[in-house]
């Protein structure tokens, strides 16, 4: 196995050359996909609570979330006889779930067992078979964009991040821009032209021209949004504001997007119904709700998947937190999905079913789950599915 950095070095120069960043004018309607990557390994057990398991309450004496109580409007929300949703997202994600627009896939993840954040994030973003030598120039979102580029299914990819994530590595051009802090476009046309020409023939040429153009385009888009929308975005901030802006851009211009959210590595004092983790989940839930609203009618064409590199230990550790684990819970959201279900292969949650007496097992491989979603969303052929996720037969969870 070669490390990510090592391989990044090998191909950096080669890949930067000849890859031109192009801005897209997406047709007004059609499938859209957003990947939300929770970096740090979020504690899925405090999001989707296995409340029918007595073992859950034994394993987490300090950080378990109380069983749903039908008389309590603010506690955990029972989703079925076994699973409940964290109080922190009850009003947002819970409401979408009840509207059939959210599904959860427990026991999801990757076979990567390094339990290293960085190693596992990389391997998920690359989406390649674990046994093979890794190609760090090729991420699964990049391969999806390559598969969809050309014709009516044009991918129109964008990454809402300061840097381009590994997931989007590949030959398809992908612009990136964080929507956290947006000012006026910095340069007039003449300056932008001179700056671009300075890089003419240089390996950064397309990054330079694409970056300058995208800033102008987003500024125009946001100016329109401010004029046409009655929504007051002054009160939204952080991820919520970003997510709303993402919704507008994906409604009008882009088809596949990527965003990452950090702050999930809760080794110490993660809290329960309230606390650090609950606050992060709350913000995420409000952001995704805002995203769904700002997409307007396109929400019905949109699928969002929320995932994280791994789950955390099923038992709390000595510091009322949790350590790096294995299986996790994926979220699938969308206006047109067949949601309101807990999807995929499942097991009863007890001590015997834990992986290595420590973590959730992985029963639903991320490559097969995402491959199944993509196949349905875009009607991909078997060959196209194989291109995006080599050696992974798509699983149809009947969600999209």
């Amino acid at each position: 196995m070669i490390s990510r950095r090592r391989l990044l070095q090998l191909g950096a120069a080669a890949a930067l050359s000849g890859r031109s960043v192009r801005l897209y004018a997406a047709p007004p309607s059609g499938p859209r996909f957003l990947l939300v990557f929770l970096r740090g390994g979020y504690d899925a057990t405090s999001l989707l609570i296995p409340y029918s398991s007595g073992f859950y309450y034994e394993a987490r004496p300090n950080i378990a979330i109380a069983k749903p109580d039908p008389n309590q409007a603010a506690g955990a929300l029972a989703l079925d006889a076994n699973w409940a949703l964290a109080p922190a997202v009850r009003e947002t994600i819970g409401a979408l779930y009840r509207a059939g627009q959210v599904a959860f896939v427990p026991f999801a993840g990757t076979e990567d067992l390094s339990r290293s954040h960085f190693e596992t994030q990389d391997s998920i973003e690359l989406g390649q078979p674990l046994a093979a030598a890794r190609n760090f120039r090729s991420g699964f979102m990049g391969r999806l964009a390559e598969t969809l580029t050309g014709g009516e299914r044009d991918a129109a990819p964008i990454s809402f991040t300061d840097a381009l994530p590994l997931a989007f590595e590949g030959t398809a051009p992908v612009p990136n821009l964080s929507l956290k802090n947006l000012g006026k476009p910095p340069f007039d046309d003449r300056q932008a032209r001179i700056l671009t020409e300075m890089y003419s023939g240089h390996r950064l040429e397309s990054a330079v021209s694409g970056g300058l153009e995208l800033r102008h385009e987003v500024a125009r888009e946001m100016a329109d949004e401010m004029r046409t929308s009655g929504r007051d975005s002054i009160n939204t901030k952080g991820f919520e504001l970003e997510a709303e802006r993402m919704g507008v851009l994906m409604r009008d211009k882009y088809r596949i997007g990527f965003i990452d959210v950090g702050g999930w590595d809760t080794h110490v004092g993660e809290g329960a119904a309230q606390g650090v983790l609950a606050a992060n989940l709350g913000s995420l839930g409000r952001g995704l709700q805002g995203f769904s609203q700002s997409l307007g009618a396109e929400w019905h064409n949109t699928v969002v998947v929320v995932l994280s590199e791994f789950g955390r230990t099923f038992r709390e550790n000595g510091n009322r937190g949790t350590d790096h684990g294995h299986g996790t819970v994926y979220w699938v959201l969308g206006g047109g999905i067949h949601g309101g279900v807990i999807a995929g292969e499942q097991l009863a949650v007890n001590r015997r079913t834990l992986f290595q007496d420590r973590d959730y097992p992985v029963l639903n491989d991320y490559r097969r789950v995402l491959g199944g979603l993509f196949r349905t969303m875009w009607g991909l052929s078997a060959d196209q599915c194989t291109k995006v996720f080599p050696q992974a037969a798509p699983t149809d969870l009947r969600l999209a």
Partner: protein
Amino acid sequence: MPTFVRLLNVARPMGIARIGSMAGIGGIAAVLVLGAVGCATHPTGAQAKLARPDAAAGVLPLLHREDVLWLGRVSFGLDAASVADYRRLGREKFLERQLHPRGPALPEPVAVRLAAADPGAGAAGEEMRGDAAARIAAVNAARKSIYALPEGSEREAARKAMNDRGNRVAYAAIRRELLRAVYSQDQLEEQMVWFWLNHFNVYQHKAEIRWVIGDYAEVAIRPHALGLFRDLVLATLEHPAMLQYLDNQQNAAGHVNENYARELLELHTLGVNGGYTQQDVQQLALVLTGAGIAGENPPKLKPELQGFYVRRGAFEFNPARHDFSRKTLLGRSIPGEGFAEIEAAVDLLTRQPACARFIAGELARYFVADDPPPALVDRMAQTFMRTNGDMAAVLRTLFLARELDAALGSKFKDPMRFVVSAVRFAYDGPVITNTRPLLNWLNSLGEAPFGHQTPDGYPMTELNWASAGQMSRRFEIARSIGSGSAGLFDADDGSAKGESGFPQLSNRLFFEAVEPFLTANTRNALGRASSQQEWNLFLLSSPDFSYE
């Protein structure tokens, strides 16, 4: 060569122009033409090498493109003093001085400013003074007294006041490191301090870390930056910043937390493919049980444990929290001996060939190339093994390698190098008073000091810093630096406005070490600039300035 640039050449070498418009430039143009006639060092256009030695310094070797680029790697970027030293000493002697700094390295105005800027000097708040141990104790005491207040506005005000003090303390630490990076003569040491702060990353916004980041940089990192790797590992292991950041202060027998143990193996010493297993992580976590931060009073220990207690500054090894079982690490048996186990484990890890290769590779990636030549990494790893991890020796191997010469000019500057090199170049004369603009630029470019949340530190390759979005952001920063409106000469606390005016980048340093080697594209862009500020923007945005 564009007339515009030629005219500006001698306007105010090393100084700051106070002209703010094209009209102003036009107005002084006639005077400048006269001045230029007698200017011996005036350049004549594109040349591969500088044609004339510096008259004032006697007959000195010519500066070649390789010299300038090599100097750019050893330092955070050229300034007039480093160029003069290099020409006087030659490459090997210059390198020896950089590998064995003798101080004092800071120009007096900077040293004076740093001394005056200590927020502990005369300010309220015990937690802002002294070493890490004193600060941690004072922070705990302050928190206690705040919690003792009844809920309400008084408590809220006290909490806010403490928070403000914490921000000031963190900023003072960042300011210190930034001023050193810009103005210290010991530029290699400064780069190594930055490199190790990144390698042994801590995040100021976790727990109480911001109160001690200055101590972490100055006490745990700086003294060992060019020293023995083993000492560096042990110094970071014992520092309260790291103990909080990776949770080892919580790691105790029966309450094992393996966070630090894992990253000590994966990120600090061996690398993710360094040949350790999950079992090694768990065993190392047991070795590290009991290593934490000293409390107000020493723990009450049973007599048989008292001999195992260790206290060094804010660090404490508490044998009552330690797992004394026998461990096996990397196949080696470690008997339960308390703190001695930790020293044995650090010795074991830092003597692994995997560790030598990992550290050599990281250094070469930072200083040589995104994809460092394997033969060079091998030689550096051999030096590491031979010298027990002596960083000065490893870096000598690196900086005298022919592989480095071959890689010159193609390393993309990460934001820290970009911002610091631009400020070194643009504000070479008058010492800036306010480092907040630098911090804002680094924030905006995504590489704030002590601002990386995860323990992997910032990445070091072009791929991570040169995306479409990052390039346009970089140009915005280039404009801020070149337009002089950023407030670098304001008072640090915002209380007073200083001089404004844009820097004169077309200065002597430019003509001596930059202009002769410019590419045609950049020359062309500079020729189209309609003002000095715009000229500055184009130069700082150019591929020539983005790479070293």
